[in-house]
């Protein structure tokens, strides 16, 4: 880094060590906040902190500049301790314009720091943000209790680049690098990863590498030199399990899990999808992995996507498709067909705010009951949920395994939060992944009247799976379809007893999945006052809440359900060891219905539908309230 080295900082500024911190970058959609956030994340990962992120962007592609609905934010929580949520409260807000301040001020903890791009606080922007004629920077009342740093971000960026011979637009766009540099300095993060990344990103345009790197360093140096900032923070490395790590986003992790399942099972991955937020990135990701034999198919709609998945799976491939809520409705009929034909495949649903088009870029967990029951007739299937960005890998892998083992479609539930969020991820070794047995049928399986015959619905007694015979296998020609099938032969049957039998059998097959589930992992106390039951992306907030509750003296535990259908068989005995049951969900209460029905226990729901994940404090409060009320 030559003479720009920042190694001298610590001598002039006081350095304060923290266990954890939460930073939020917020600005216009066009301000590059998502990039800024991810670069800060990378630097933080390199500093060996644990971390969790929450990107949050508007539904519009480029909402008009300056408006509150055009604000894009990236929140990052990191620490030397285990970090599981993007942070309940913000320690540092970087606000690039008035709208960003307006939208996010309430998230900053009292005493927290706010870095403000002073140059953006002009009358026009103030009006757009709804501040009217009064500049909030002049409003002491409003900003009382915060440490406010007004920085002339835009102007200093211009200054820095005045000799770079770049057009005004380009210059203005680099101001996020100033903010990044400053933030990196504030938390004593290395700037090398960001410098490298810039070099790569603009490899074809050296002038932009130079300019952006220059601004980045200027930001860093600004922190170092200006007297505004008297404290610099340092967050020591977290104690993470030994291993090789990378930062990973949920969608990437999902994609890798699918590729891993395909590689280990030697089943070619056929992925079909119709773009929909927030699932599209999975399509983007997988379409790059063609050299793993992955074929991606952008279908004309979600119905075609599930149809193609069924076709590929009939053909002996690992058929996978992904969508979000509205798309899942359209796949319902096809999934029902797959249930009837008993073909293995994985349907990923990256949930978003509903109903209808709802809040397409916001997170929610409100498709659980749709996943369970959103098909005509009795059409049960296994449901698996991913709890963290890194866990998406394992959940995806597991979904594929279950699908193939039991010859059934599996729904894998993720949500916008887990898919877009990122965390440090210990990279597994391919050889440590569970093996995958794919027993394609290759010969007749029954003598009927002396003739070798293939019965496509003969069962494996253990898994209740029927055989998978792929076209191209001589002698196993057979026909599948959506009409009720006769036991074993698979012929069309309208026989009343057969229908009852097959309906029960299909239900039992799904129940069989519980056989291979590992014992439940109860976080915190394994018996006591309160158990919190969650599923999917709420894991971080729930575990943090359990820590706090235990710190407060409650005997509290938590169970995060990876498998929602079937429920793990030891769930009942875990529950029996607690007095109270709290079920926090980002919906109006869905898992809680399943649990109440199953166990007839007074589970209490905690609902949130605000397009945002839980704060740990919300769960803590609800838990305390509930335990108090009922005792």
């Amino acid at each position, binding site marked *: 880094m030559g003479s720009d080295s920042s190694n001298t900082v610590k001598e002039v500024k006081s350095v304060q060590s923290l266990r954890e911190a939460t930073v939020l970058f917020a600005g216009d959609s066009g301000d590059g906040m998502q990039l800024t956030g991810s670069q800060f994340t990378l630097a933080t*990962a*390199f500093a*060996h902190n644990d971390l969790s992120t929450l990107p949050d962007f508007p539904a519009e592609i480029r909402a008009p500049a300056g408006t509150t609905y055009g604000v894009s934010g990236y929140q990052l929580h990191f620490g030397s301790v285990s970090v599981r949520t993007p942070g309940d409260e913000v320690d540092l807000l970087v606000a690039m314009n008035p709208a960003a301040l307006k939208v996010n001020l309430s998230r900053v903890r009292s005493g927290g720091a706010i870095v403000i791009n002073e140059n953006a606080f002009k009358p026009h922007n103030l009006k757009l943000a709804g501040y009217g004629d009064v500049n909030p920077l002049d409003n002491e009342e409003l900003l009382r209790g915060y440490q406010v740093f007004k920085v002339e971000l835009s102007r200093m960026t211009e200054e820095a680049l005045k000799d770079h011979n770049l057009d005004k637009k380009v210059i203005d766009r680099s101001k996020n690098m100033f903010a990044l540099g400053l933030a990196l300095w504030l938390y004593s993060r290395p700037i090398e*990863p960001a410098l490298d990344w810039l070099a790569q990103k603009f490899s074809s345009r050296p002038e932009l590498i130079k300019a952006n790197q220059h601004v980045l360093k200027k930001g860093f140096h600004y922190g170092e030199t200006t007297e505004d900032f008297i404290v610099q923070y340092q967050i020591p*490395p977290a104690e*993470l*399990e*030994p*291993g*090789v*790590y*990378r*930062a*990973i986003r949920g969608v990437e992790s999902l994609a*890798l899990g699918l*590729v*891993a399942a395909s*590689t280990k099972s030697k089943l070619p991955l*056929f992925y079909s999808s119709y773009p929909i937020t927030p699932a599209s990135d999975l399509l983007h990701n997988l379409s790059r*992995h*063609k*050299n*793993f*034999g*992955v*074929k991606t*198919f952008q*279908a*004309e709609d979600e*119905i*075609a*996507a*599930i*149809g*193609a*998945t*069924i*076709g*590929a799976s*009939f*053909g002996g*491939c690992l*058929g996978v498709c992904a969508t979000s809520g509205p798309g899942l409705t359209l796949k319902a*009929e096809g999934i*029902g*067909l797959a249930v009837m*034909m008993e073909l293995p495949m994985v349907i990923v649903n990256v949930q978003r705010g509903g109903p209808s088009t709802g809040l397409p870029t916001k997170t929610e967990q409100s498709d659980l009951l749709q996943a369970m029951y959103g098909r005509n007739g009795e059409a049960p299937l296994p449901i698996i949920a991913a709890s963290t960005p890194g866990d998406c890998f394992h959940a995806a892998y597991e979904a594929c395994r279950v699908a193939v083992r039991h010859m059934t479609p599996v729904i894998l539930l993720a949500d916008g939060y887990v898919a877009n969020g990122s965390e440090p991820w210990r*990279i597994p*070794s*391919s050889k440590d992944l569970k093996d995958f047995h794919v027993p394609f049928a290759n010969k007749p399986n029954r003598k009927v009247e002396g003739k070798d015959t293939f019965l496509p619905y003969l069962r494996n007694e253990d898994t209740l799976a029927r055989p998978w015979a*792929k*076209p*191209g296998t*001589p002698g196993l*020609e057979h*026909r*599948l*379809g*959506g009409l009720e099938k006769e036991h074993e032969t698979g012929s*069309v049957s309208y026989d009343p007893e057969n229908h009852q039998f097959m309906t029960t059998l299909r239900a039992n097959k799904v129940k069989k999945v519980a056989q291979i589930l590992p014992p439940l992992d109860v976080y915190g106390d394994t018996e006591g006052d309160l158990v919190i039951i969650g599923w999917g992306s709420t894991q971080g907030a729930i575990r943090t809440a359990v820590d706090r509750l235990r710190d407060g003296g409650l005997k509290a535990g938590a169970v995060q359900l990876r498998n929602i259908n079937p429920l793990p068989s030891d769930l009942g005995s875990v529950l029996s060891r607690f007095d109270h049951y709290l079920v926090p969900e980002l919906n109006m209460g869905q898992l809680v219905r399943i649990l109440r029905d199953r166990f007839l226990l007074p589970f209490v729901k905690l609902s949130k539908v605000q397009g945002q994940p839980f704060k740990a404090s919300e769960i803590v409060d609800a838990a305390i309230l509930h335990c108090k009320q009922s005792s």
Partner: protein
Amino acid sequence: MPTLPPSKKPTLPPGLGSRRLSPSKPKIDRKAYSSDQDVRWCPGCGDYAILASVQRLMPQLDVKRENVVFISGIGCSSRFPYYMETYGMHSIHGRAPTVATGLKASRPELDVWVVTGDGDALSIGGNHLIHILRRNVNLQILLFNNQIYGLTKGQFSPTSEIGKVTKSSPFGSVSPPFNPISISLGASASFVARTADRDTKHLTQILRRAHAHQGSSFIEIYQNCNIYNDGAFFAFTEKATKPERTIYLEHGKPMLFSNGSKGIRLAGFSPVVFDLEEGHLSSEDAIVYDETSLELAEIVSRMSQQPDMPRPFGVFYREERPTYEQMLQEQVMAVTEKRGQGDLDKLLHAADTWTIS
């Protein structure tokens, strides 16, 4: 009379005389392609003749039975796969093309046939039909057009004529019909043909040509539903009226009908009938059919909507262009060649990593 542009001179269309393509095939007979399921169509249904023709044709084609897959939607016609001793799927209403696309894209070596009805393909399934045609997935689509919903007991379909009285249109339907040939041409189909259940020879010949074609072959088959729409096509299939009411398109041959006594020529951009026996015009004046001309195919397809015109049968259009699965496969191969066969562990590490010990 317009002449063929030089670049489009007739060539021997593939599939014609395909027996010659595989001269030494052992004789497997039709039975090898009959499944053990009882055929459950109404007695007299046109579907029987089509089934028999397909079962007879299969052994003559250069494919192994285990590589053959029939995929259908829902409808009387869509029961077809149950009766074929091949791989098959009776999927859901209108979606057969999507299943077939997934199968063919992932297993290009299979020989896939889609069987569908006018309701299945053109009502609920219209979107998938046009998309599979534009993508040019290499398979055969057999649309059994009986101009009615058979399985649901007789409602008008998107090919039923206006004014049709059915259970759901007791005072006559007010929906104008689709012309399946025009729709498929509009959707850039690379092989478009029409034939009929009762003309099994022609049917077989068209199916053979469709099979030989590389790409999506769309075949409209007029099929008599003797229960709910009996005789809808008798004008085109019964001896008394057939010569006057039909014209058979043959590549490189003049468009003549009525046993050669009448012809079709172009007036402006529209086809018109002329009488050879009147003596003013001869067969030289008739359009020489060119199945490689999309423009001609579209012009001729519109004759079906004109009651005073003979109904065209045969191959309307044929074009050679890459198939979807071929392009997809080539892309996979090209990327693999460039990057090498994927290594999972490398991929998992393909990011900025750090080690904690």
